[in-house]
């Protein structure tokens, strides 16, 4: 029996993806008219968007709260650094680097792709055991991964410069160079979630037992999701290096984890629209707070400089959202451009009377 056209197109849902892409491009275009300072904020936000969308691919679809995505970002950053910094500069900073890496000198784009690939390979290795865990064990395990990677990056001085910074990265990242990556991430995240892989994983998120009974190999689906999500986190790491011109191990630890998790949770863990919404809201909120932090002249009053206010405000916001709207601003739903009643096949008003909530 043929599926009615209304259901087919309704369940295609390509529209939300276009909507998100359009919104993002529009915002970037608008920011392009603003001074350089704001553009830098936007670039930073786009890079974080990559991380958030990357982590969403795993967290949103599997329901497993992972703390480890920033470790993929860190690995990506250092891999990109090895490949993109000129051999002369590397000679000065990391004299003991193996020849293969020492002589490498690639374009930023190639290095970014390699960063993503490296992060994915790492995710595969870590994911094979990690995907066997569920619930809080998985969260703790992912935290352990983050801690181990940070410990290694901070201490493997010969390869990473240890606690010190690596400089010499090209300043390649601006809003126009990062936007394509962000759009690509959105497209892939959407495709994944609409694919049979995404569907299987989301079933497992809702009920592991029923999913297994329906033939879903939960472990395999989780590994796949983790590998895909790590790619974008790795690329984001590379871009972050290009953005700052300098990378240091402690950038890829608790503070970055906190910001990106906040963005995802505030926007709504369960949907791609939530990831995007979260980044936009938190960036805006953060900017407001940062200006307050510097001290601001409010006419008759002058608010003194208060460092730490930005982080404080973000943490407070996260707590408030968790208490009052735990599913986030979007409530886990995607942007719905067309109301349900528009489709004939949908439920009629009043049909559902025995609904017990």
């Amino acid at each position, binding site marked *: 029996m043929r599926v009615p056209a209304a259901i087919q197109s309704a369940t295609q849902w390509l529209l939300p993806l276009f909507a998100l892409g359009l919104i993002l491009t529009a915002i970037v275009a608008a920011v392009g008219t603003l001074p350089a300072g704001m553009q830098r904020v936007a670039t930073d936000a786009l890079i974080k968007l990559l991380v958030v969308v990357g982590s969403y691919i795993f967290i949103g679809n599997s329901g497993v709260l992972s703390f480890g995505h920033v470790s993929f970002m860190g690995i990506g950053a250092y891999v990109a650094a090895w490949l993109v910094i000129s051999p002369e500069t590397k000679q000065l900073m990391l004299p003991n680097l193996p020849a293969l890496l020492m002589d490498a000198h690639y374009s930023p784009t190639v290095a970014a792709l390699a960063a993503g690939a490296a992060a994915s390979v790492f995710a595969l290795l870590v994911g094979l055991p990690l995907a066997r865990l569920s619930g809080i*064990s998985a969260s703790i395990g992912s935290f352990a*991964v983050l801690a181990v990677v940070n410990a290694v990056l901070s201490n493997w001085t010969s390869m990473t410069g240890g606690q010190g910074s690596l400089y010499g990265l090209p300043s390649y990242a601006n809003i126009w160079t990062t936007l394509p990556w962000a759009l690509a991430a959105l497209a892939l995240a959407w495709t994944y979630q609409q694919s049979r892989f995404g569907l299987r994983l989301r079933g497992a998120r809702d009920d592991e037992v029923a999913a297994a009974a329906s033939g879903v190999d939960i472990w395999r689906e989780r590994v796949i999701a983790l590998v895909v999500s790590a790619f974008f986190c790795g690329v984001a790491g590379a871009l972050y290096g290009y953005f700052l011109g300098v990378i240091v191990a402690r950038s890829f630890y608790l503070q970055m984890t906190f910001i990106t998790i906040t963005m995802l949770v505030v926007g709504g863990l369960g949907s791609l629209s939530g990831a995007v919404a979260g980044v936009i809201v938190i960036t805006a909120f953060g900017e407001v707070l940062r200006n307050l932090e510097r001290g601001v002249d409010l006419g008759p009053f002058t608010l003194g400089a208060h460092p730490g206010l930005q982080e404080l405000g973000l943490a407070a916001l996260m707590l408030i959202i968790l*208490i009052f709207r735990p599913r986030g601003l979007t409530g886990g739903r995607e942007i719905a451009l067309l109301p349900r009643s528009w489709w004939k096949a949908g439920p009629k008003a009043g049909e559902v009377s025995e609904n017990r909530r």
Partner: protein
Amino acid sequence: MTLTLQYVIDALNVGGLYALMALGIGLIFGIMRLINFAHGEMVMVGGYAMLLLIDLPGPAVVGVSILAVVALALAIERLAFRPLRDAAPSTLLVASFALSYFLQNLSVLLFGARPKPFVFASALATDLQVGPVRIALLQLVSMGLTLAALAGLTVLLKRTSIGVQLRAASQDFRAARLCGVRANSVIAFAFAISGALAWIVSLIYSAQIGQLSPAMGVRPVVIGFVATILGGLGSLVGAVVGGFFVGALAVALEAGLSLELRPFKEAVLFALVFLVLLLRPQGLVAVRALRERV
């Protein structure tokens, strides 16, 4: 031989500290299935409280700062965690993470981000020679405090009504309520004890490192966390065992690893957590099967 004895003493010292941290975390987990990241901030607040009161006579410093930390613990419970009592475990985890961050940055706002020197009872800085080993007086005091705390907690949990109620609620919260145990009282009690334990850690830890900073609680809480998991989430005995185990391991790694590998000892600890979660998720001690009924 002397070296081994020295290591044993170091291990006991460090292990005791981690055991106290693990207990503080484990108490809350047992009763609420919540991993309280903010426990580290309670340690931090204890330190700053003592610093603020440093000009007062010793007993006053101790008394008031304990009260401050316990008050903070109760406030955290009432304001942040009670509204979330029925939330999913992942929500609780993220909330406690956010709370920890909040408190750290509040401290930055109030005290500034730079470390402040902390000197308390400077007489304790001397070393003693006891037979073949050299012990810092501070180490002796901290071991004594740790033992006293463990003993006190045992008495509290076994001999007082509220202590027995706490153990019952940790085992089976619903059944305890059905017997008339007041949920709010028992949870508040757990947080208060957890706060007291955090204060003891803050005293020992601050004195040992000699300074205070807003993020000083992060390292202890993460290690305490590791210890709780290794020992077995949900078991108080496991938390203590886990603490001493991690202490011993940390000292052994420090001694045993070659100089280049020594900074990686934290990596080793976390890798161990990962392995335990994978192979023996119930931990070294606890025998708790959490299996979903199909």
